[in-house]
């Protein structure tokens, strides 16, 4: 099977005056469709940077990046943006809902940038509201929702266009454990349904929802391990 993502000797460098700092060093990574991968590591290891590059938000790096066989490193900004729009959904630690839009309007945002016709847009948003049991919240603004509810909307927004890949940057970082558990169960269900998920987390318990853990340190991949899944989770504190 063709990997969803292939990274070859990928490096990210920032310059501060005469000095160069490597945020990522020689990353070589294959991620297959349907995987649930967790990126872990201490602060400053380069986890979020790697996620931004995989998510095509960051175009300033060197090396080779193939997404479904397409050479992302050779694409111009417009083509990269199209590839990102068609295939990737984001979930953020701080939810990143737009404050002055209602839940309904927030869910519409990704659709508005894919030129989805109005009728279809309404139908997709209604489906998402129904699927995530947030129909009753559709006219509320983000500040009228709890953190868990906001993240639920954030996940709904990420999956509304049925992306092949969901990138989650510490998705439960701002939630209490029960809410976090709920979100992780949701990710698990989405992954079981075939969506590839890459999450960044510090939580061993959240990592146990996935099937592979990639450890980063100082920009290097230091280990890759398979997780024991539900069994491991049972031994972790909630």
């Amino acid at each position: 099977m063709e990997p969803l993502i292939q990274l070859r000797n990928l490096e990210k460098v920032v310059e501060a005056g005469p000095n160069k700092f490597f945020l990522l060093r020689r990353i070589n990574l294959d991620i297959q469709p349907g995987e649930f991968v967790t990126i872990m590591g201490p602060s400053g290891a380069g986890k979020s940077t790697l996620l931004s590059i995989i998510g095509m938000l960051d175009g300033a790096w060197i090396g080779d990046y193939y997404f479904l066989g397409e050479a992302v490193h050779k694409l111009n900004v417009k083509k990269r943006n199209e590839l990102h729009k068609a295939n990737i959904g984001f979930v953020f630690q701080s939810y990143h809902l737009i404050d002055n839009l209602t839940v309904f309007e927030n869910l519409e945002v990704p659709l508005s940038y894919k030129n989805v016709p109005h009728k279809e847009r309404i139908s997709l948003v209604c489906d998402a509201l129904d699927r995530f049991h947030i129909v009753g919240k559709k006219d509320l603004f983000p500040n009228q929702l709890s953190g868990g509810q906001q993240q639920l909307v954030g996940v709904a927004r990420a999956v509304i266009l049925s992306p092949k890949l969901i990138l989650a940057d510490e998705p439960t970082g701002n939630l209490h454990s029960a809410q976090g558990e709920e979100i992780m169960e949701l990710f698990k269900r989405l992954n079981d349904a075939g969506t590839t998920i890459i999450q960044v987390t510090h939580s061993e318990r959240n990592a146990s929802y996935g099937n592979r853990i990639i450890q980063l340190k100082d920009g290097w991949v230091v280990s890759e391990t398979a997780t024991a899944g539900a069994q491991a989770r049972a031994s972790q504190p909630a």
Partner: protein
Amino acid sequence: MRNAIVQTISPNYFGLMQIALREGREIANTDADGTLPVAVISRSLARRYFPDEKPLGKKLKVAPADDSSAWLTIVGIVDDVHYGWIDKNDVPTIYRSYRQAPPYYASLVLRTGGEPLSFVPAVRSQVAAVDPDLSLFNIKTLDKVISDSVVGIAYVAVMMGVLGIIALVLAAVGVYGVMSNAVSERTNEIGIRMAMGATANDIQKLVLGNGALLTLIGMGIGLPVAFLLANALSSLLFGVKAADPVAFIVLPLVLAAVATLASYLPARRAVHVDPITALRYE
């Protein structure tokens, strides 16, 4: 009778000044001392004081009714002339013969075939031939006379223009400031939208659309207020129209262009927002 201008003229005055005779006759050389005192009136005077009757042959007096001065017989009606710029309405005017009411001083008006001031020496010699003691002074072209008569209002107009330009610059700076601030406040939102698939073009449209909305709201409030003020001004000043196309079409377009430019710079900045940095921006 109230509020009439009295002009003492020579017989050729109306033809020279191209004031059309509408009824009766002009002042003639025969209207001299000892003949029937006559007057030619303007149409506005005829309308105001003889609304339902023919004014020709009627009499009027340039003095209180019980004054012993002579009654003037109306012999002609001519078009109105604007002698002032403040009053938009025509001012009733009575024209008398200079032979029947000699003034203390006279203004000599000449229509020339070329550059008017080149005729001054010839006119001086002609006047000196009649009376060497008569001095000619304050010699001007009619254009200068007219421009001198509006110098006050022209000064006000220039000042208003300068204030208008200052207001335009302030409005542009204001729109720029508001849009700039809006872009800063929406940095996080811009990052979110980029992460959701917005292109640079989408972001530019978002910011420019916001600027256009503010401009439309401003014009929606400003234009009706300006129309009301212009309406009030048009009733006070001659030559000012309430629905002036320059004021209500050209200037709003200029303002819209300025507002678009003032929004464009922040929009350009928004396009270059780094989504990673923007998403960290709270």
